[in-house]
């Protein structure tokens, strides 16, 4: 009886979404999908070797430098959000060398990895896509040039509500080239693999770490095999001279990793022959879609020694009384490039069930500027989550961590112990 009353009361007049809700939601799905279309394109391999040309850079923390040509670069990007207020006894120095790569020529664009930096926790790249034709304009994948304005890539609009495509035509560009850079984190599992034993054999052959759960299932897919990133809207990006676009990307690293591979993709879109833009109908040249792979090598010897700013310890209590509590240790680490929280969880079973451990939003808000890097790896019987994070003005005395999917969103306070 109470059940029926409850149901009737709650369902008597369900709130309706506002007009156009479904259409707007479809548009969102469409824009998300457009960033993934590239996954299905055929791949062509363009592997380049890292040159022996190296330039030693020595700099103090906070002194931004872009690259040898003085462009805006990785350090400018990182220092935009990094707190300068935490003092440590040790100044941070880049002790090693920064590799620079020769440009890669493709049909539509020349790709230049202007900077590649790593500190063993995160990978940071500054990559420029320069169109080969003078009247072409390159832009990052997440942008819709027929809806988004030129401000999104750091350009001044000629008038209010101007779309990037309109701006391009007005400034002599008659071709748009949509470009993207994305990591290659996971191998695709061949279709013919049906059983867990076959899957285990395949993963073992590929060298992909995996675990078998108590019920025999195989879990592997949240353990990154490399840095994960893609160039998208929240990444730093800007259009430079001659229609080239600069994209900054960040990804998490696994310890000991020195080689990083990534996919690039480029699809041209022709503007109207008469140089006008009035029908708002893009003509994407899908038959001219190009995609390939480039790689960078950053020796581990170039990583400077990290400094541990603080240690935290806390107990995560389980909602399920039958389960033991879990002691979680967190370290706040600073390198010359960025700040990181490294969370060590000894309960592998539970960690695998809820891998989306993350810090309270105020701390992890770095992600919003596209400088997010995240990695998970199994190390010495523990799961180690490393996340680049924005540290507030001073080192916090306590942290709040949550399991992303935890029942009822129980929070755990982690106290500083030194």
């Amino acid at each position, binding site marked *: 009886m109470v059940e029926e009353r409850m149901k009737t009361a709650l369902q008597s007049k369900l709130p309706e979404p506002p007009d156009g809700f*479904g259409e707007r939601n479809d548009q969102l799905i469409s824009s998300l999908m457009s960033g993934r279309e590239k996954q299905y394109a055929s791949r062509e391999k363009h592997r380049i070797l890292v040159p022996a040309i190296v330039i030693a850079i020595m700099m103090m923390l906070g002194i931004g430098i872009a690259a040898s040509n003085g462009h805006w670069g990785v350090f400018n990007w990182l220092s935009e959000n990094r707190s300068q207020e935490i003092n440590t006894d040790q100044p941070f120095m880049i002790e090693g060398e920064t590799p620079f790569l020769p440009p890669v020529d493709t049909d539509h664009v020349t790709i230049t990895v202007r900077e590649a930096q790593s500190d063993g926790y995160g990978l940071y790249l500054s990559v420029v896509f320069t169109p080969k034709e003078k009247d072409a304009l390159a832009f990052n994948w997440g942008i819709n040039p027929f809806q988004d304005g030129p401000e999104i890539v750091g350009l001044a609009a000629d008038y209010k509500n101007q779309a990037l495509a309109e701006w391009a035509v007005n400034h002599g560009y008659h071709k748009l080239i949509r470009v993207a850079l994305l990591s290659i984190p996971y191998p695709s599992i061949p279709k013919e693999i049906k059983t867990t034993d076959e899957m285990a054999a395949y993963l073992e052959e590929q060298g992909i770490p995996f675990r078998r759960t108590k019920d025999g299932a195989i879990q592997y897919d949240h353990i990154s095999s490399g840095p994960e990133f893609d160039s998208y809207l929240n990444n730093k990006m800007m259009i430079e001279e001659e229609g080239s676009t600069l994209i900054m990307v960040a990804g998490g690293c696994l310890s000991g990793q020195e080689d990083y591979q990534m996919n690039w993709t480029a699809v041209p879109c022709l503007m109207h022959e008469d140089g006008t833009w009035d029908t708002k109908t893009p003509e994407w040249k899908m038959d001219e879609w190009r995609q390939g792979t480039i790689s960078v090598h950053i020796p581990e010897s170039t990583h400077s020694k990290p400094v541990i700013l603080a240690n935290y310890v806390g107990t995560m209590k389980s909602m399920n009384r039958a389960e033991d509590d879990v002691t979680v240790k967190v370290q706040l680490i600073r390198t010359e490039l960025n700040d990181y929280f490294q969370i060590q969880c000894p309960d592998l079973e539970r960690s695998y069930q809820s891998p989306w451990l993350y810090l309270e939003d105020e701390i992890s808000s770095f992600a919003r500027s596209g400088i997010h890097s995240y990695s998970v790896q199994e190390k010495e019987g523990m799961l180690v989550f490393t996340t680049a994070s924005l540290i507030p003005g001073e080192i916090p005395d306590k942290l709040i961590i949550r399991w992303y999917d935890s029942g009822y*969103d129980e929070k755990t306070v982690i106290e500083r112990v030194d």
Partner: protein
Amino acid sequence: MMEYEKEQAFINAVRGRREQMYRIALGYLRNSQDAEDAVSDAVEATWKSLKRIRNADALPAYLIRCTINAARYQLRKRHKTQSAEQFSEFLAAGESGDPIINYLSGMKERDQLLLILKYQENLREKEIASILHIPRGTVSSRIITLLKRIKAELLEEESDNG
């Protein structure tokens, strides 16, 4: 599951559940635009986690879980707290006039959520367990406990009213 198949499952799950997601977000946020934003955030968050989701059948529950997280995040960001009075206003929108709503609005958020998922959104206990990441038996026993408590309070009130 191949990526393409997983993405199709994602689209189907979003289209099938977005109105439900909107209602749940609205329950937290009281504002139509904010609720829609929370749905968008949840869709985007799920998309970004798609490669980590092993079983496409889990997508609807995952979407709702992300909606709850997105709505809570918005609340925290705005430093707004959810008062029982506000929740009651929302529930009163049902215009049922049933005093049972008053008991619901006085409950802890987690208990309200449990009952809303069960009785407003008609979700199965298995699915609720999946959304809240608690054992199915716990869902069942908590609902029974909550209903018993409401029943006792209703009887007491009716007895007081003669």
